[in-house]
C-alpha cells in the first residue's frame, strides 16, 4: 500500500520537478555558504599576515616615541566563524568579523562596517537557510495542496472512501509518503553540506537537524489543516500560498517595522557626535582638569604627573579617554536598546515559525545580533586590555625596542554556545500540534465524499 502510494506520487511531474528545483537550489546554497566562509577566512588570514608586517614597519619608523607609535598601531580581534555559518550567513555579511583597533578612543572605531554591496544584502543570500525557510515549505505546499481535493475532482475519492474503513487513514498515509520524500530531500542536502563544508557533527549540528525537521513538520501540520477544510484544489492553493506569504513576508515585515520604530537607535548617532566632541574640545581646554578626570577613571595612573610641556602623551591619551567616557551614557543606552531588540525579536518569533527558525538558525551559526553584541563586548574588553598594557609604558616613556612586538598576534573571540532545547523546539512543536489537532477534529466532524 505504502509503496503503491509512493510510486503514484513520484510518477507525478510536479513531484519530480519540485524535488529537482529544491535540490539544485540547495546545492547552490551550499556553495554560496562555502564561498562566504572562504572569503571570511581569507580576510582573517590576511589580517594575521598584515598585523605582523604593520607592527614591524611602524615600529621601525616611529622608534623614538612609544606614544606616537601607538597612535598608529592597530591590533585585531576576530569573531571566530563556526562552520555552520555556511548554512546560515545571517548578519555576518553586514557586520564585520574583524575589528582592528588602535588604543585611541574606542567608540570612534568599533562601528566600522565591513565592505559590502548593498544590492546583495537587499536581495538576500541564497544560503541553505533560505532553502529551508522559503523553498521547502513551497515544496510541501506543492506536494499536499490537492491531497484530497484532487481525488474528489477526479472522482476517485468515492471509491477510496467506500473501500477503506477509515478514509482519513488513507490521507494520513499519503501525507506520510510526502513527508518522507521531503525529509529525504533535506537529508540529502544536509549530507552534501556535511561533506562539502566539513561540518562537525556535534550538539549544534544535532540542534540544526531537529530545528529543520520540526520546522518542516510545522508546515505539514499547516497543510493538513488546510486539507481538512475540504475545499477545492484551487482554493487550497490560494489559502496555502497566502499563509506562506503571511509567514515569510508580511508578518516578519510588520514585526521588523514594529521593532525598528519601537526601539529606534538615535543613540548610535549621538555616540559618534558625543565621543568626537568629548575628545576634541579638550585640545582647547586647560590640561589639568582633563588629566584629573583621567586619574579619577584610572587611580593607578595618578602616580604619573602631567609633564610641564605643551604636548605630552599622558595628556593626549587622557583626551582620547574622555571621548569614550563622555559618550558612555549613550553607549550604554544603545547597547540596552539593541538587547531589547534582540529579546523582543525572540519573543515575537515564538508566534511566527519562519522568524523563529531563522533566528534560531542564525544564533546556532553564531550569525545573529546576540553574537554581534557579545563580540562588541569582547571588543571593548580587548581594547581595554591593550590600553592598560600600554598606558604605563607610554607614560614611563619606555623605549619602543623594550616591547616584545612579536607577542601581539591576532586574537580570537568565540561565542560560548549553549542550546536551550525547549526554547528552540517547543514553539514550533506547539504550532504543529495546534494545526494537526484542529485538522484532525475537522475530519472527525465531517468527511464528505464528493467534491
Amino acid at each position, binding site marked *: 500500500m505504502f509503496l503503491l502510494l509512493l510510486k503514484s506520487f513520484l510518477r507525478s511531474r*510536479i513531484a519530480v520537478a519540485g524535488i529537482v528545483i529544491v535540490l539544485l537550489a540547495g546545492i*547552490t546554497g551550499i556553495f*554560496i555558504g562555502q564561498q562566504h566562509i572562504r572569503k571570511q577566512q581569507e580576510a582573517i588570514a*590576511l589580517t594575521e599576515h598584515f598585523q605582523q608586517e604593520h607592527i614591524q614597519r611602524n615600529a621601525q*619608523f616611529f622608534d623614538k616615541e612609544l606614544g606616537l607609535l601607538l597612535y598608529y598601531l592597530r591590533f585585531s580581534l576576530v569573531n571566530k566563524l563556526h562552520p555552520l555559518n555556511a548554512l546560515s550567513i*545571517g*548578519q555576518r555579511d*553586514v*557586520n564585520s568579523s574583524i575589528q582592528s583597533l588602535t588604543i585611541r578612543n574606542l567608540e*570612534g572605531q568599533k*562601528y*566600522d*562596517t*565591513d*565592505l559590502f*554591496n*548593498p*544590492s*546583495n544584502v*537587499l*536581495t*538576500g*543570500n*541564497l544560503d541553505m537557510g*533560505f532553502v529551508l525557510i*522559503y523553498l521547502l515549505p513551497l515544496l510541501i505546499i506543492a506536494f499536499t495542496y*490537492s491531497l484530497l481535493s484532487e481525488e474528489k475532482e477526479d472522482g476517485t475519492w468515492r471509491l477510496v472512501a467506500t473501500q477503506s474503513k477509515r478514509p482519513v487513514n488513507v490521507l494520513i498515509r499519503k501525507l506520510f509518503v510526502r513527508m518522507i520524500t521531503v525529509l529525504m530531500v533535506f537529508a540529502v542536502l544536509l549530507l552534501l553540506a556535511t561533506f562539502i563544508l566539513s561540518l562537525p557533527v556535534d550538539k549544534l549540528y544535532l540542534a540544526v537537524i531537529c530545528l529543520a525537521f520540526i520546522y518542516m513538520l510545522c508546515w505539514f501540520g499547516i497543510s493538513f489543516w488546510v486539507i481538512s477544510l475540504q475545499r477545492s*484544489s484551487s482554493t487550497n*492553493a*490560494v489559502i496555502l500560498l497566502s499563509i506562506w*506569504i503571511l509567514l515569510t*513576508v508580511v508578518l*516578519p*515585515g*510588520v*514585526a*521588523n*517595522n514594529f*521593532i525598528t*520604530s519601537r526601539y*529606534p537607535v*538615535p543613540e*548610535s*548617532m*549621538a555616540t559618534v*557626535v558625543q565621543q*568626537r*566632541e568629548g575628545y*576634541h574640545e579638550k*585640545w582647547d581646554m586647560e590640561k589639568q582638569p582633563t588629566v584629573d578626570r583621567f586619574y579619577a577613571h584610572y587611580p593607578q595612573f595618578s602616580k604619573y604627573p602631567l609633564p610641564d610641556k*605643551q604636548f605630552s602623551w599622558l595628556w593626549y591619551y587622557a583626551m582620547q579617554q574622555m571621548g569614550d567616557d563622555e559618550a558612555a551614557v549613550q553607549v550604554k543606552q544603545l547597547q540596552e536598546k*539593541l538587547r531589547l*531588540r*534582540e529579546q523582543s*525579536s525572540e519573543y515575537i518569533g515564538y508566534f511566527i515559525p519562519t*522568524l523563529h527558525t*531563522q*533566528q534560531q538558525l542564525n544564533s546556532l551559526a553564531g550569525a*545573529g*545580533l546576540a553574537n554581534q553584541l557579545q563580540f562588541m563586548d569582547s571588543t571593548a574588553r580587548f581594547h581595554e586590555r591593550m590600553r592598560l598594557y600600554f598606558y604605563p609604558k607610554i607614560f614611563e616613556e619606555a623605549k619602543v625596542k623594550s616591547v616584545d612586538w612579536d607577542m601581539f598576534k591576532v586574537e580570537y573571540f568565540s561565542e560560548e554556545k549553549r542550546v536551550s532545547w525547549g526554547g528552540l523546539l517547543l514553539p514550533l512543536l506547539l504550532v504543529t500540534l495546534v494545526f494537526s489537532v484542529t485538522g484532525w477534529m475537522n475530519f472527525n466532524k465531517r468527511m464528505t465524499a464528493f467534491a
Partner: protein
Amino acid sequence: MNISTTKLFAAQIYWNTLKNKALRVLLGIVALLIIYAAFSGALIYQEQTQTRQHYQHEVRTNWEKMPDKHPHRMAHYGYIVFRPKHLLSVFDYGMESFTGNAVFLEAHRQNSANFSEAGFSTGMLRFGEISMSMILQVLVPLVIFFIGFGAIATDRENGTLKMLLSQGATWKEILTGKAIGLLGIAVSVLLFAVVVLLVACLGIAGSQINGDDILRIGTVLLTYTLYFSIICLLTVIISAVSRTAKFSLVILIGIWLTAVVIFPRTAQAIGNFLYHTPSRIAFEAAVEKDLIKKGDSHNPDDPYYKALKDSVLKAYHVQSVDELPFNYGGFQMKEGERLSADIYNQHLAGLLGIYQQQNNVLRLSAIVNPFTALRNLSMAVSGTDFQSYTGFQQQAETYRYALAQHMNDLQIKYISNKKPDDHDHPPSISKAHWKEFPDFAYQRASLGTVMYHELWSLLALLCWTAGLLLLIKLLSNKLKAI
C-alpha cells in the same frame, strides 16, 4: 474588435471581483497594508530625518563654535555628514536599511559610512520590509493572479466559453476585455496607494513638496501601470491557454515564485559568484600598498617626499624648509592628501565597478523579469537605489577632500614655519575661518538623470507590454474553444 463587447468583459470581471466576498476581503487586506506601510514609512522617515537633521545641525554649530585653533587640528576634528532621506523613501525603502547613514570625515582617512539599520538589526530585516512599493510589486500581482486565473479557464471548463463565442464575441475581445478589467482592479489599488502616499507626504513635508517630488510620484504611477498591464495580460494569456482553472492557477503561482522569490536571488548570487569583491582588510591593504609605493609620508627617508622637498628648496633658493615663505608642513600634507585621495579614489572606483558588475547581472536580467525591471525603476525614482547611495558616498568624499585641503591651505598661508617651544602658545588661526567653509549640501540626481540610468529597465517593461500585446494578437487567431 468591438469596443462595447470589450467593455462588457472588462466591466464583468471588474464588478464581479468587487461583488465577491472573499476577493473583497483580500483587497481590503491589501488596502489596510498599504495604509499601514504608508504610515510606518512616514513615521520612519520623520524619525530618521529629524534625528539626522538634528545631528547635522549640531555638527555644524559645533564646527562654527570651535575656538581659534591650528587648522590641522580642525582637519582632524573633521566633520560628520548624514545621508538625507528622499521624501519618496516613504514609498520605496529600497536599500535604505542596508546602507550606512553617517560618515565621519577627517584628514588622511576615508571612513566608511556607518550605522546602517541592518547593522543594528536582528536577522528579521532579511525577510524584507513592508513598504508600499513591496505591496504593489509583490502582493498585488499575486492578488491579480488569484482574481484572474479562472478568467477564461473557468469559462472553458464550464462550457460558458462556447456560449460566449457563439454569441459572436471574438477571442481578441475576450482577452483584451478581461485584461482591461483586471487592470482596472490593479490600477484602482494603485490609485488608492498614490492618494495615500500623497496624504503621507503632505503630512510629513507639507508645503515643502516640490515639483520634482510630484513628477516622481507621477513616474511611479506610470511605471507601475505599465507593470500591472504586463501582469494582467499575462494572467489572461495563461488562463486562456490552460485547460483547467486549477492548472492556470498553478502555472501563475509558479511564475510569481520564480520572478519574485527565486530569480532575483539567483541572479544576484551569479553576479557574486562571477565577480569577487575584496574584504575590507584586503581593500585597505591594497590602498596602503599603493600608497607606500608612491611615497610613504611616515617614512622620514622616503625618496618621493625627499625629492619633493629638494625641488621646493631649489625653486626658492633656500637651504632649509624653515626659510621658506610658507608653511612646508602644510604643503607636504597637501601633496600627501592629494596622493592618498587619488589612490583611494582609484581603488574605490574599482570596488564600485565590481559592485556594479555584480549588480549588472540582475539589472540586465530585467529584460526577462519585469519584476526586477520595476523594482530597479521604483528604487531609482525614490532615491533609494545603489546609484543614490554611491552618489552620497562620492559627494561625502569630495567634501572631505575639500575640507582637508582647505585646512592645509590655511596652514600653508597662516602658520609659521618655526617650531614652537614647549612653553610657547601653540600656533593657531582665527575661528572666523571655520565659518568660511560651507556646510555639506547633498545634491540629488535629477529625475532625468535617474531615468537615463534606468533606461534599460524602462525598455524591459515596454518590451514586455508590447510582446504580450503581440502575443494576444497572435493567440486570438490560434486559440480554440474546445
